[in-house]
Every structure is written in structure tokens, then in C-alpha cells.
């Protein structure tokens, strides 16, 4: 189990290292505009093949790259209904504060839980290997965070229920 997680993360890291070759490319259609081509998808010659890396039926990662931008979308493992709700709320909390993270996308891509958008400007300002380390660290920590949240919700519910039902004894 842990072995597939390590292999999955290694695969995503290698793919991102290969895909993160971004350069500045002003918009071809509108002059004096500079847009991330992976978002607009107007010119097919600027886009590369999107790659979907699945660990199993529940977890997957979509890496789409273009000449000046790279988009990484992650679907986190959600085993039950409670984890579903917790993941959605937690990741929505993070996405709403996307400006603080700089590389986060405000809305995840359809079918995924969270998305990152890297542009050539990010690669110029920050180290490429550090950006990839950030995404890897995020993926490792997200599982721990969700299980901690789930544990605290269950504990709190247990306590509240005990206190409430004491009055009926």
C-alpha cells in the first residue's frame, strides 16, 4: 500500500519535472496580451498531450502542459461520505485563499478536488524543484490532514452525544 503511494508520487514528480519547461509566450490572437495557454486551449500547436496518472479507481492526477503554463489537478482519496464533505470543505477553504499560495487555482478543474496552475513567471521567480517539492509535500500532507479532521469530528460528536444523552439517564 505504502509502496504504491511512493511509486505514484515518484511518477508524478518525474512527469512534472519533464513537463515544467515553460517559457514566455505572448498571446497570438490578441496583441499585448499574455495568457496561460493551457487554460484557453485556443491553439493546438502550443499544447502538449495531457497525461492522466491513476493510482487506483479513486485517486488520480491530471498533468496538462503547454508552452507557457502547466496545470496539475489532483483527485484525493475519499473513502466515505464524511471524508467527502471534509475534503470538499477543506480544499475549498484553501482554494478561496489561492492568492496567498500563488500557484493554486481558484476553482478546481471539473472532476478533480484541487488544481495548481504554474506559469513561466512562477518558474522565473521561484526554483523549479522547489515548486515540485511543494506539490509533493501537499499531496503527502493532505491525507494526514483529512484523517486528523475526521478523527476530531468523530471525537467531538462522541463527546457531544455523551453529554446530551446524560440528561436522559
Amino acid at each position, binding site marked *: 500500500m505504502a509502496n*504504491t503511494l511512493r511509486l505514484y508520487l515518484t*511518477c508524478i514528480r518525474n512527469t512534472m519535472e*519533464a*513537463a515544467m519547461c515553460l517559457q514566455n509566450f505572448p498571446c497570438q490572437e490578441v496583441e499585448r496580451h499574455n495568457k496561460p495557454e493551457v487554460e484557453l486551449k485556443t491553439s493546438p500547436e502550443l499544447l*502538449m*498531450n495531457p*497525461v492522466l496518472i*491513476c493510482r487506483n*479507481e479513486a485517486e488520480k492526477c491530471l498533468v496538462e502542459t503547454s508552452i507557457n503554463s502547466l496545470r496539475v489537478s489532483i483527485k484525493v482519496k475519499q473513502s466515505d461520505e464524511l471524508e467527502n464533505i471534509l475534503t470538499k470543505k477543506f480544499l475549498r477553504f484553501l482554494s478561496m485563499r489561492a492568492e496567498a499560495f500563488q500557484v493554486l487555482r481558484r476553482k478546481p478543474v471539473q472532476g478533480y478536488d484541487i488544481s495548481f496552475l504554474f506559469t513561466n513567471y512562477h518558474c522565473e521567480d521561484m526554483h523549479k524543484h522547489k515548486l515540485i517539492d511543494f506539490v509533493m509535500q501537499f499531496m503527502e500532507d493532505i491525507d494526514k490532514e483529512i484523517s486528523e479532521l475526521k478523527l476530531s469530528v468523530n471525537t467531538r460528536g462522541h463527546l457531544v452525544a455523551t453529554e446530551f444523552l446524560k440528561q436522559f439517564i
Partner: protein
Amino acid sequence: MLFTQCSIVRGKWGDCELRMAGDGSQEADNAEAIISRIEQKSQKIETLLKQSKPVEALKMALEGSPPNTKDERCKSANWIAVHRALMAVRDVDGMLAYLDPEYYDILMKYLYRGLSTGDRPTCEQCLKIHEKLTDKAGPGCILRSLADTVNTV
């Protein structure tokens, strides 16, 4: 295969594409020819797998890959053959040592196709091979499979 009228077209980055100025039925014939070739190949692969030679089976499956057809059936047929051979491989290091470097790029493309299926055993196998192949072939192999939009599997 006879090409009645061909023209070599220079693409945007100087790579060539052989365009056939034939009608649609010619392409359909080619697709049928390719599919029958793939079927013959998969029978040979089955016999090799029964003899417990998964590495040779994989090499044979990768050899006749039809990258230039647009036909989805050819690609799916070849993918099924490659998938059979991939799942039978146990010794990944030995397999990579046996395989010629010219097949690394095609293998990488098929690995990504396997990873996109989402089926648990396929993904586990593909992830294992992907790590070893990247160590051997380098990130350039991955980049070529990403950048090649013309020859897809």
C-alpha cells in the same frame, strides 16, 4: 502497401508527414490490414506468453506499433496486445535490459495509456515500470511522449 499519390509535407518544426492523396476507402483498407496484422501478432504473443517469455512478447507487441493511423480501433487493438504482455512481466530490470533503447519512447507512451485506465493492477504494474524506465531513459523520454502529438498510441 502501394501509395498511389504521396506528398511529403513539412510540418511547422520541420518534421515530415507523409500524406496520402487517396480517398477514405484506402485508409479503411489500411486500417483493416493493420488490424489483421495486429491479430496475427497477438496470437504469436499468446504463444510466447504460454512459454513464459513475457519479455519477448512485450518486444513483439511494441515492434509493430502503428503510430501513424488515426483509427482508434488499430490503436485499441495494439493496446490490448501490449497490455497482455505488460501484465505478464515480473522482472522489470531484466526486461528493460533486454529491450533496445529505440523502444523506450513507445513503451513510455503505452505506460501513460495504462496509467490513464484507472484499473488497479494495471496502474500498479505501470507505476513500477515507469519508475525504472525513467531511471534508465531519463526525463527526455517522458518529455518526448508528452510533446509528440502526431504519433500517439
